[in-house]
């Protein structure tokens, strides 16, 4: 549990991801792992609709397709190397002590899962290479990553500068309590202003829990600004975020079961979709 896995892919968010990774690595004094996953496209390149198969059709087709894949991979490999080298230079300039470059042939989700056992934090952009820069929805991989890993995930948005304050959405559930515990135990957010925001829900004793959490954070040395809102959850959080100077959002991920979410939608995903701030998801 000690590397900052930073996922680069050459998309519009790559620079922000890189800066966020460097920031986290420096703050936590952990090695920075720059990860580039070479993803395989499921699209056929050459088309031969003749439908005729002759002598040795299988082996010649295999050769042809392997050669094509080889070309594609080589290009992707080179591009990735260049990108990683670039990122390394930037990281070195900003004082990262330990930098590791890794390239893997797989889906980014798989690559992250493979490396997760040695991860302290995963930094990823909100959408990948395939999408246009003004693409508003979150990338298809984000949800998979958040669901599958057990390490905190930092989702970088368009720009990233070292945050001074963060907003913690606290709903009194177990996942939120865990998130608070991790904030206090981990070092990433130490020294920042904490906007503790709770939106009233059906849970009983939420107010007491909210107060207790505020005290706990304060005792741990955070500068806490606590607010108890009575709006609808999502709108309340969004409003608070815009009205106060918040640099980063922090949430415990997915309080619903997968089934419930399919019907209700999750606030976490909604938040990711509708914000331009970097977002830290604690598991």
């Amino acid at each position: 549990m000690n590397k900052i896995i930073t996922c680069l892919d050459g998309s519009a968010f790559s620079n922000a991801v890189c800066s966020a990774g460097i920031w986290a690595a420096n703050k936590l004094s952990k090695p920075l792992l720059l990860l580039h996953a070479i993803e395989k496209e499921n699209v056929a390149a050459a088309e031969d609709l003749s439908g005729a198969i002759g002598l040795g059709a299988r082996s010649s087709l295999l050769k042809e397709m392997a050669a094509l894949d080889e070309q594609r991979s080589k290009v992707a490999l080179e591009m990735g190397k260049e990108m990683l080298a670039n990122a390394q230079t930037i990281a070195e300039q900003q004082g990262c002590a330990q930098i590791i470059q890794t390239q893997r042939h797989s889906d980014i989700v798989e690559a992250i899962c493979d490396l997760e056992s040695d991860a302290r934090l995963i930094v990823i952009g909100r959408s990948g290479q395939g999408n246009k820069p003004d693409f508003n929805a979150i990338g298809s991989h984000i949800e998979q990553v958040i669901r599958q890993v057990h390490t905190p995930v930092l989702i970088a948005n368009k720009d990233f500068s070292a945050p001074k304050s963060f907003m913690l959405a606290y709903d009194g559930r177990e996942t939120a309590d865990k998130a608070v515990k991790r904030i206090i135990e981990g070092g990433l957010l130490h020294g920042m202003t904490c906007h503790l925001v709770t939106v009233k829900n059906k849970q009983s004793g939420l107010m007491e829990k909210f107060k207790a959490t505020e005290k706990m954070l304060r005792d741990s040395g955070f500068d806490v600004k606590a607010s108890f809102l009575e709006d609808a959850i999502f709108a309340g959080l969004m409003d608070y975020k815009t009205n106060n100077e918040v640099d980063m959002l922090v949430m415990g991920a997915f309080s619903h079961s997968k089934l419930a979410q399919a019907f209700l939608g999750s606030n976490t995903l909604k938040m990711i979709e509708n914000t331009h701030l970097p977002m830290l998801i604690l598991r």
Partner: protein
Amino acid sequence: MLEKMKLEWLSNIRGDLLAGTVVALALIPEAIAFSIIAGVDPKVGLYASFCIAVIIAIVGGRPGMISAATGAMALLMVTLVKDHGLEYLLAATLLTGVIQIIAGYLKLGSLMRFVSRSVVTGFVNALAILIFMAQLPELTNVTWHVYAMTAAGLGIIYLFPYVPVVGKSIPSPLVCIIVLTAVAMMIGLDIRTVGDMGELPDTLPIFLWPDVPLNLETLYIILPYSVGLAIVGLLESMMTATIVDDLTDTKSDRNKECKGQGIANIGAGLMGGMAGCAMIGQSIINVKSGGRGRLSTFVAGTLLIIMVVFLDEWIKQIPMAALVAVMIMVSIGTFSWSSITDLKKHPLSTNIVMIATVIVVVATHNLALGVFVGVLLATLFFANKIGRFMVVKSEQATNGVRNYQVIGQVFFASSEQFIESFDFKEVVDKVVIDLTHAHFWDITAVSSLDKVVIKFKREGAEVEVVGMSAATETIVDKFGVLNDPKEVEKLMAGH
């Protein structure tokens, strides 16, 4: 899960649509030809191809693979259809599906690892030969017109792709069929056409329960066929899946494919279709045409039934010679020609396995039997080879004491040699048998050791066995060393 579905269905829409169309066109003649092999109306094969392709597209474990009515399966049903009729074939198809689903749940897909490469090659070659042989009845006792048509058809199929521009965008088997049909209709040749071979579908398939008595007698009739069909179907599907895996450099879910094929066959049986499985030739055509996702299989099945239902009047006019030409192409494309040139390079035992598989299949028309013989032979050859990994060293220690050190693999194939390695005629007071570096794989090995000990005792020698527990660690059925380097090293120490 939604993500995965999107990836498997919608990530290659253009390629899948085009490839699916090409495959649908190629499937029609094949489905008709295989129905004729099985001895049923063309509509049985066409309905089957539709149902199987569409269902497996949804529930199969290998996106991009084409499944439909196949020659391998058709060959197994010939006698069932001849002796008992179509309804029993439909019932057998249902049962085949059930058996395949059970196989999927028992994870038998992983058993494919026991089928060696030579057996796979033999299977593929035998299949190609059988498809070719099935065309022979169409080519015997016919006028020269048929030969001319078939030759012209083959010419079109293989040469048309070289025509610039259109060559690579219009399937040449389709061109072959259209041209030959037009020629035959224009000059009014009196040769056999698809219409002569039986009924074609004029509606979409409808649900119908096979009209057989539900009793044990029926089960006795259909069970042997269903078991054979299930085995051959799974074998060919697993082999095709491997081929598609290799071509596209992706993985397939074999047990899901087993279950999926079971469901597809049940669907086919209930819709009046015969049993089917994955098709090597068509899957290669699909990948070659750019098909990668589930959509290609789905499109192939759907388009097939649409074309057949709307064009049945035209399809009836297709001369059999055109179909024969297409089937000869499929046979040639399926045959592994490199296996012939490899005969010189490969060791004799490998060649024997391959050729034996081919001979048994061609002789019995049963691919399951061929694979069984191939696997058996391959296993025997392997056991024989490993049996040679054994040596018994012997040295005189002190006066009247002889040390034997056994190194290597002791099991049924090497136990005789093991016994013979001891010199029972020598007069000694004490014999020490060191088994520390030996592996006893089965009880045959243990009983041969017992024999050796008893023999020495009879000669009046005292016997001491060293390292017995280490040697017999491998005798239990499951010893946990797979993927555990430390354990493997411990086990293989001294080899």
